[in-house]
């Protein structure tokens, strides 16, 4: 079979909830994706609900496998039209992963209009809290998904996270809807969660909630100044919307550090902020991973670290300095932290963040130096021609850092050929050469008793 075919999903009522199971016939065999939530008795099921969710779940895997997508449930006309644009975008961003657009075949759903209720995805993170607090007055429900950044197998951690998020939702006076899905068991085989699929997965869950919600907010990860490709993105999230569901990518007007400042006033955020994805040792926020470290750094820069007792370990500056930057989106976060730390007079933190950034810069430069080293001896030629002031600056820096080593290195390369040495001195300082030679010659012919001190050559290892 050279296509992905999505059979009509099975909808089951479970005790106190609804379960939807998608079955897909794929070139790799049958795939099964389950989404369950605790809402029941939907007021009305939009005609395109199941087809729209199927589109969001399987369009990107179909592109990855470069096979047509056939959905047997009706899909909203708007989403069918936008599927082509979504394919353009992902194909342009990741041409190596999504090599070609795929044909999508699905019946068109009857038109429908979205309801009035509004929901917001809520993971307990900074972006979530910011969007929830911003739209608090118009939100009807918060949505937390088990199985997205929290594996279903970690039951104890899930229980703790769910209970804390319920407490946060209670403080915020908004009901929390918990959804459970095993979608990553399928998607992780083909796609990268963060770079490709997280936005589409959220859209799929949102479509299945469209009988109860007319619009869902996806909290933004970045700002307008950073539009690098990512799985959840301004260009793509809103395009996953259907006739019965609007999706809003929210919060790009504020930097992460501004969001932290904004949420610091809310008890729910201070007591239940959750940023950790690695959960080392089953901790709510491990305090050791990259996300925890930079969040704690942000909070310290704002003078708010003590107000957020949600981290298992105190901020370790050494660990922060050694932190590896594995995605370019992290760079602006570090810039913001450094600026805030400097503004607050926390030079220790600013210095550590700078070191972390420099280490990242050195790694990038080292990667660029590798092909240059392979092209040696051309690389030194290029260095010589390209940047005389760079050479000067490097040498000046070497002198100030380690004069002994610099002198040794210079002498090692300095006119090793006697003829070149003579030409050099003759050209640039011949009177010194003549005086020095004459002095040495005369001195040797003086009686010993008249010599003030023996002329000795400098030690071999230093000129």
């Amino acid at each position, binding site marked *: 079979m050279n296509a992905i075919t999505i059979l009509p999903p099975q909808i089951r009522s479970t005790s106190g909830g609804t379960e939807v199971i998608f079955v897909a016939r794929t070139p790799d065999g049958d795939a099964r994706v389950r989404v369950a939530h605790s809402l029941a008795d939907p007021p009305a099921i939009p005609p395109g609900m199941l087809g729209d969710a199927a589109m969001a779940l399987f369009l990107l895997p179909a592109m990855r496998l470069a096979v047509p997508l056939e959905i047997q449930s009706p899909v909203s006309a708007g989403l069918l039209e936008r599927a082509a644009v979504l394919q353009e975008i992902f194909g342009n961003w990741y041409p190596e992963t999504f090599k070609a657009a795929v044909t999508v075949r699905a019946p068109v759903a009857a038109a429908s209009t979205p309801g009035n209720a509004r929901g917001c995805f809520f993971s307990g993170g900074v972006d979530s809290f910011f969007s929830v607090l911003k739209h608090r007055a118009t939100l009807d429900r918060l949505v937390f998904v088990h199985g997205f950044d929290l594996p279903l197998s970690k039951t104890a951690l899930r229980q703790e996270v769910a209970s804390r998020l319920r407490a946060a939702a209670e403080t915020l006076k908004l009901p929390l809807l918990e959804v459970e899905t095993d979608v990553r068991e399928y998607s992780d085989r083909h796609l990268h969660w963060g770079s490709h699929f997280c936005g589409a997965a959220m859209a799929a869950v949102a479509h299945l909630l469209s009988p109860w919600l007319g619009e869902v907010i996806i909290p933004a990860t970045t700002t307008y*100044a950073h539009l690098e490709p990512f799985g959840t993105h301004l260009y793509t999230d809103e395009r996953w919307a259907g006739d019965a569901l609007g999706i809003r990518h929210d919060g*790009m007007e504020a930097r992460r550090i501004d969001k932290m400042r904004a949420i610091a006033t809310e008890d729910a955020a201070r007591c239940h902020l959750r940023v950790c994805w690695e959960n080392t040792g089953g901790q709510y926020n491990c305090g050791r991973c990259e996300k925890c470290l930079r969040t704690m750094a942000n909070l310290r820069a704002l003078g708010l670290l003590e107000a957020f007792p949600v981290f298992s370990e105190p901020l370790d500056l050494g660990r922060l300095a050694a932190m590896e930057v594995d995605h370019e989106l992290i760079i602006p976060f570090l810039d913001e932290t450094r600026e805030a730390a400097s503004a607050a007079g926390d030079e220790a933190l600013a*210095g550590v963040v700078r070191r972390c950034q420099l280490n990242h810069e050195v790694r990038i*430069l080292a990667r660029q130096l590798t092909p240059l080293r392979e092209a040696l001896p051309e690389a030194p030629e290029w260095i*010589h021609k*390209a940047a005389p002031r760079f050479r000067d600056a490097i040498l000046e820096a070497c002198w100030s850092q*380690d004069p002994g080593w610099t002198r040794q290195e210079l002498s090692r*390369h300095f006119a090793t050929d*006697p003829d070149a040495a003579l030409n050099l*001195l003759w050209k640039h300082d011949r009177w010194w050469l003549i005086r020095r030679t004459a002095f040495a010659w005369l001195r040797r012919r003086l009686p010993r008793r008249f010599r003030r001190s023996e002329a000795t050559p400098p030690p071999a290892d230093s000129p």
Partner: protein
Amino acid sequence: MNARIIAEPPELSRDGDGQLATVRLWWRPGRGPERDFLGSTTFRFRTPVPLTEVGPEVSVSMALTPSLALGVPVECPVPVSRRFLRSWERMGAMMGAWFPGMKPLPVIAKPRDVPLEAPSGLEPGTGCYFSGGVDSWFTLSRLRSEITHLIYMDGFDMDLEKPVARRLSVDRLRTAAGETGLPLVVVETDARCLASRFFEPWRQYVGAGKAAVGQLLSPWLPRQFAASSYSWNESRKPVSSAHFLLVEGASTETLELREHGMATSRLSKVAALGEIPAALRHLRVCWDMLPDRINCARCEKCLRSMLELEIAGLLPSCKTLPHVIPPESVRDVKLPDHRNHMHDAWIGFEDWFRNFRPGSPLAVCLTEKLRRSEADRWSARLWSAGKELTRSNGWPALARALGSAAIETASRHDPAWMLRKTRRSAEQMKEALFWQLAGNHEGRLIRRIFQCWWRRDQ
């Protein structure tokens, strides 16, 4: 803050056989009625049936960028499109994030949900912005069956102080449009004068200008397409206010404005010109507005287009650009900054010529050009990183590696530099050299010195 920029709805008046829409902006410093004239801009255009109504969105669009620059909200006394007001929240935040110093503020106006009415007898159409460039021709070729009119904004991307060149440019575009069978709607505006009073460069204003023209023509052309200059990937680096989100944000209940062409690379678009003979006869890529020719063939844009056409095998067929690319022009042209996506195009050219025309003068020239550009970039990057690096713990090891490389090359190519740079311990260095030369045999050295002296006198 009580200060406001007041954007009154445009005034429509007759202008010969066309119409003139005048946008006036006022500055109100406080709560009172007093206000000062801030500036105005005019749009001259012609429609088959004169418009009776122009939306206030035109004035608001023109007022938005001064509002961002001055940090003062815009107020409109009449209702403004709800869709546009909602878009503005996002557009303002985007402009504020992209252009430092710009402060997004809300538009103070009542929302309006009712679309504008077209005068009776005016058949609605679909417009396509057309400048005669690669993107325009590509979009036109792909959407030809939907487009009914071409739109050209005269006074936008060209210098207002060259009326003769501008008129020639419009004439050439009319000829080109004539070959496509589509009428050309020319909207003449001095919006650039208003913009330049507040800031440079023009790129911060061009989006607002396009939005205003689109909204102006919306009762007649409710669907409009703008040819995109960037792909989806390139649009992540905001280069100007003509970003597709800002352009499409100008849509209202009356106007649906869409960008086209973001999925297609520039080279693919150029290759597609081979299917459009009219494009190769009338292609205009240059912004220099020379009176005697369409394209100067010297600027970076012209050279880049010529290289693209050469790669596509279409340069000999193009009637508006020379058929031979002088390597010296390529050598002398200033490349875009490496952060600009157009710099990547030059890297692509070098790669192509090195692989498919190895050893040709252009290939050699491009390789050298890119090598120098890369050297400058690497140098600048290291320079800024180097300053910071010297304060880090990893510095000594890196300094030694770099210092060794620098000293090794200098020892081969620039020993005089070595001598200059050892100034700090010049005496020791020279002493080392002396011992290297003389050892304990000064007599031998004296003979060699005489030989040097003798050679000097020869």
